[in-house]
């Protein structure tokens, strides 16, 4: 597998309250990767380090197959970025964004930017007198996304692009993801973080699950779906099944959780019903598993 970005023992230390890593991830080239994790898991920090916004403490990053810094060569020119908030100065208007982007990045196409905005229901003429701070969160995100898609890049790094968008626009964003990946003939890639996993499930070819600054699981979405199964059973089967399950939630009417697919037959023999997980289900269960392991580790300490 050829990787677009490879993180090797990447560490970022802020203070005693939070540190990221060591993180080892190989983001596949020509695919869309979803970063999934709870708030404060380190997704934004990771993306900021990749884009050269935040400095790393230790470790190595390879960009497009070459180890180095984000400021080396044309790396920053090849990476488009969109932050969930605070991307541009609040007082800027859309035309200021267009002017600044066109001056800062060679591959920025002003006409394409305005066309993309019009396609996202943000006609520049209508909003020309308004500063970004006067726009709604959703509108601001559309401006930010248009500024990223209007550039000629090989990698897009998008921090929660769907967070403030309405369902229709989120669906269109997923289509745009596909178009972007397809237009690159295997050379263009996307890394995005999301909490709306169900809505953006079809856009995630590869998934990285993060918890408390560490990567707990990663792989192609279809492989992960083959690796794990979702279990449901009668609550009275808890004692027999819990040993085979990774996570287990038990209510008065139902027992459910996550297990490894290799234990499928044993689980079914004990009367459990199994199903192939969706990415959304898988993410929730894997986050529960990470939390469980973290808490038991802390308890041991």
């Amino acid at each position, binding site marked *: 597998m050829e990787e677009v970005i490879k993180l090797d023992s990447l560490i970022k230390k802020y203070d005693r309250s939070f540190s990221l890593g060591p993180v080892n991830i190989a983001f596949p080239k020509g695919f869309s990767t979803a970063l999934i994790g709870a708030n404060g898991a380190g997704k934004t920090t990771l993306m900021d380090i990749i884009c050269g916004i935040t400095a790393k403490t230790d470790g190595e990053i390879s960009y497009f197959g070459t180890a180095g810094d984000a400021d080396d060569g044309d790396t920053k020119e090849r990476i488009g970025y969109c*932050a969930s908030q*605070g991307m541009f100065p609040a007082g800027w208007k859309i035309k200021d964004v267009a*002017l600044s982007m066109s*001056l800062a990045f060679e591959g920025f196409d002003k006409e394409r930017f305005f066309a993309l905005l019009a396609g996202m229901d943000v006609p520049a003429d209508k909003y020309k007198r308004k500063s970004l701070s006067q726009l709604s969160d959703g509108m601001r995100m559309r401006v930010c996304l248009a500024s990223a898609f209007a550039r000629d890049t090989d990698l897009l790094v998008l921090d929660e692009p769907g967070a403030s968008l309405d369902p229709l626009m989120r669906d269109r964003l997923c289509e745009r993801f596909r178009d972007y990946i397809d237009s690159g003939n295997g050379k263009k890639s996307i890394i995005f973080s999301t909490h709306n996993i169900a809505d953006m499930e079809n856009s995630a070819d590869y998934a990285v699950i993060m918890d408390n600054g560490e990567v707990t699981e990663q792989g192609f979405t279809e492989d992960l779906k083959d690796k794990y199964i979702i279990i449901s059973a009668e609550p009275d089967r808890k004692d027999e099944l819990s040993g085979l399950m990774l996570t287990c939630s038990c209510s008065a009417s139902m027992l459910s959780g996550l297990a490894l697919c290799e234990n499928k037959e044993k689980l079914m023999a004990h009367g459990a019903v199994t199903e192939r997980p969706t990415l959304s289900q898988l993410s929730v269960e894997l986050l529960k598993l990470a939390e469980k392991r973290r808490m038991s580790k802390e308890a041991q300490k």
Partner: protein
Amino acid sequence: MIKAVRIFNSNVLFKTAVLMVVIIALFFGTGFALGVNAGENADLSQQAEQAGEEISPETLNIIMSCVLGYISAMAITGSAVNMFYKTDGCKYARTIKNADKLFCSSLVGSQLLSHLTAIALSGVISAIMTLFDCTKALNIPLMMLFSLASSLLFDIIIRPLLSTKSGNARFFLLLITLFFVSAVVSAVFIATQTLSYQILLISGGILTLATGIGAVISTVSSCRYIRRNWLS
């Protein structure tokens, strides 16, 4: 450098510079035209001598140049410093290659623009005054020199302005420099009344040199601060 200024400040600073020069030109041009038409200030120097007034028009011109020089620096370089706070908090700037160097280049560009505006403002005033025979051409270099010195004076505080996080503290810093400017203006006022033209020219040169050195030190320190801050 112009590109760097435009990346972070759009065209706002250039528009501000042009607007300041145009407004001053219109203000003084109209004022003097009306005054001459009314026959009130045909020859201010002569009138001042005849009336035995202590403040000569030359003194007023130089003081005016000092004030306008400082205002141009405050409006243009001040906006550039303000932009640092805005871009420091937004991620867009850091996605640009060598953003720290580019921002320093933008800051220096803004400073140069403010100095050029200061010189242009005093040039416009002196040109209008010469046109209406209100001042001697000899005073033009003096006005430009003191205007430049005043705008350079503002640059000395950009380093503390950049690292001062609180708005109140920044306001206090600006107040302190305003006191300094008042002191300079008072000194200029006394000097123009008592010193000869040559000594005034030399003292203007010394003042420009001293503020220039201060401005360079402050700018270099600011660039180091920006680099350190953005690479953290």
